[in-house]
């Protein structure tokens, strides 16, 4: 066991790094070197990563440590997700060194990333609806500003505006849902809500059911699931590419961890099924999200927008984890499929971040956004293109990276839990996704290079981040077993 305060060390690393940046930047505003800023951010993120990794794999918090009267809880799931946030933030911080090198307000950029990461790690630990809302806003508000970071770029501002408009609306819906749940159960603490949920669902099914449905809506926004996915393509395309990487990997994982905790701890399906059958809701959402995301991705002409839609599709795969909790096959089947969702988010954190960082590299070279602009890129930047190929095939689920293992667990788990048709829809969508992912690979390796395109220099930090993500993605193919036990235990502890 670890002492109470120490359990918050991962979140504390993010906070301290953010506050350190405020102090550092106050000494010579706007003139701090990018290396210092990126270094402090990466240091904080690696600190969070290391602390959560050590706690997770040593089993120090396996029983769950409750803090502040049960408002926060540090357990296997929160540590696993903080590990994801730490790794994504570290990759993005390193990659941003090159990306924002010439831009004004660099310090603010890193501060916002670290503050958003703080919010995400608190979302992973939130054990009451109040903390859930506050930490979700702490993660969202910096994200809006980050998407609109390129103040003079119309796409960036438009993406930020749409993200903000839909985000403000869905957070208002979330908080109204919370108020309805509070009205019918009389508590905001998830364990107390669960105790009162059965009675509330029987006495006030309308109020309680509407509240739960509105909370699910608010969470669907954060995970970019249908029907609150409209912001995602525009925000991801308009945002600076490292920010897209950060949002589509870390922010999505944060939405999911909150959804897992609130639904499984706060609204156990067996006691609320009378008012709202949220497993059914998630079955519908999962199928819609997978299908819409993948079909829309297949029709895109621009690589970044294709990745944005594919990120919606992946949210659909992860939703299977909640949609398969039908009770068929017992608790162990449920734990398998839920743990598989968590593992998929872990792998996704590396492969998707890497893919968006490759797009950042291309944006840095200013060679265009469409598939055609990528033609023959492998002749000029072979190393980066090998990495991108790994990301693409791993995202599609081919056995070159960890994406294969986590998808296999996910679909096998769904079959084990008696929802074979969800696994079937997922497999069909994966096959479709291979089409549009391989378009990128084909453009890079097979098509003839564009005449007259020159690449002046190869940014070291961006390359380092992309290659690290690729190496970890490949390593996770055999290496996912390291996290297997932790994820399945974390899932079993929730059910």
């Amino acid at each position, binding site marked *: 066991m670890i002492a109470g305060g120490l359990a918050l060390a991962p979140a504390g690393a993010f906070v301290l790094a953010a*506050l350190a940046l*405020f*102090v550092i*930047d*106050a*000494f010579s*505003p706007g003139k701090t070197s990018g290396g210092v800023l990126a270094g402090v951010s990466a240091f904080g993120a690696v600190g969070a990563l290391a602390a959560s990794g050590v706690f997770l794999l040593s089993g120090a918090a396996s029983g769950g440590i409750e803090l502040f009267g049960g408002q926060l809880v540090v357990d296997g799931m929160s540590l696993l997700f903080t590990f994801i946030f730490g790794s994504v933030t570290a990759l993005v911080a390193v990659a941003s060194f090159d990306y924002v090198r010439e831009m004004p307000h660099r310090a603010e950029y890193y501060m916002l990333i670290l503050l958003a990461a703080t919010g995400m790690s608190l979302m992973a630990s939130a054990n009451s609806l109040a903390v859930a809302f506050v930490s979700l806003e702490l993660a969202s508000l910096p994200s809006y500003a980050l998407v609109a970071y390129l103040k003079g770029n119309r796409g960036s501002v438009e993406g930020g505006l749409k993200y903000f408009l839909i985000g403000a609306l869905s957070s208002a819906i979330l908080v109204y849902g919370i108020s309805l749940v509070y009205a019918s159960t009389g508590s905001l603490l998830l364990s107390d809500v669960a105790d009162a949920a059965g009675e509330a669902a029987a006495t006030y099914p309308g109020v309680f059911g509407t509240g739960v449905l509105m909370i699910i809506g608010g969470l669907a926004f954060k995970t970019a699931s249908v029907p609150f996915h409209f912001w995602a393509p525009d925000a991801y395309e308009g945002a600076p590419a490292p920010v897209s990487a950060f949002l589509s990997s870390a922010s999505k994982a944060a939405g999911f961890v909150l959804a897992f905790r609130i639904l499984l701890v706060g609204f156990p399906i067996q006691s609320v099924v009378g008012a709202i059958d949220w497993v059914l809701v998630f079955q519908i959402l999962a199928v819609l999200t997978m299908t819409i995301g993948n079909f829309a991705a297949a029709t895109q002409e621009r690589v970044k927008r294709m990745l944005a839609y594919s990120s919606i599709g992946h949210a659909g795969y992860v939703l299977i984890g909640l949609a398969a909790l039908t009770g068929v096959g017992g608790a162990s089947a449920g734990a398998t499929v839920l743990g598989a969702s968590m593992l998929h988010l872990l792998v996704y954190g590396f492969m998707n971040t890497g893919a968006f960082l490759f797009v950042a590299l291309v944006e840095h070279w200013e060679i265009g956004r469409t598939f055609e602009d990528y033609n023959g890129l492998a002749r000029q930047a072979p190393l980066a293109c090998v990495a991108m190929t790994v990301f693409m095939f791993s995202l599609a689920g081919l056995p070159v990276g960890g994406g294969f293992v986590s998808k296999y667990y996910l679909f096998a788990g769904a079959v084990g839990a008696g929802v074979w048709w969800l696994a079937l829809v997922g497999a069909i969508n994966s096959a479709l996704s291979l089409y549009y992912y391989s378009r990128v690979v084909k453009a890079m390796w097979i098509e003839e290079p564009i005449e007259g395109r020159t690449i002046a220099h190869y940014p070291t930090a961006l390359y380092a981040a992309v290659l690290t993500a690729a190496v970890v993605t490949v390593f996770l193919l055999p290496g996912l077993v390291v996290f297997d036990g932790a994820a399945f235990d974390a899932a079993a502890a929730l059910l």
Partner: protein
Amino acid sequence: MSNPWIAVGALALVGLAIPLSMIAISSLLRPSVPEQGKRAVYESGEVPTGDTRIRFNIQYYMVALLFVVFDVETVLIFPWALIYSDAVAEFGLGPVLGPMLVFLAILVIGLGWAWRTGAVRWVKSERAEIKTQL
């Protein structure tokens, strides 16, 4: 016990009746003398210039923004202040005062940063510079 809504309804009725009757009675009693001077905007004796829809200096925006954020933070201090003495008696000074000091320290770091980066620095326009020199 009588229905409490009767009192609410009576209050609403009286609240409407008083201003309406005042307007009605005064319009019956007062003499009507239309005159141009009565229609003019009164601006502390000054002759009014321009209309009300002017553009405010954009620099007020930063001040307003900082005000909104820091003003609302005080709302989180009120409940703490309300239970402060009882809580100190029960838990001791440290656990009660400490978290609030951390909260305020974070706010001070933010304010200090905003100050240093020039969020509250007032940039004078050239015209204002000339005015002060005269």
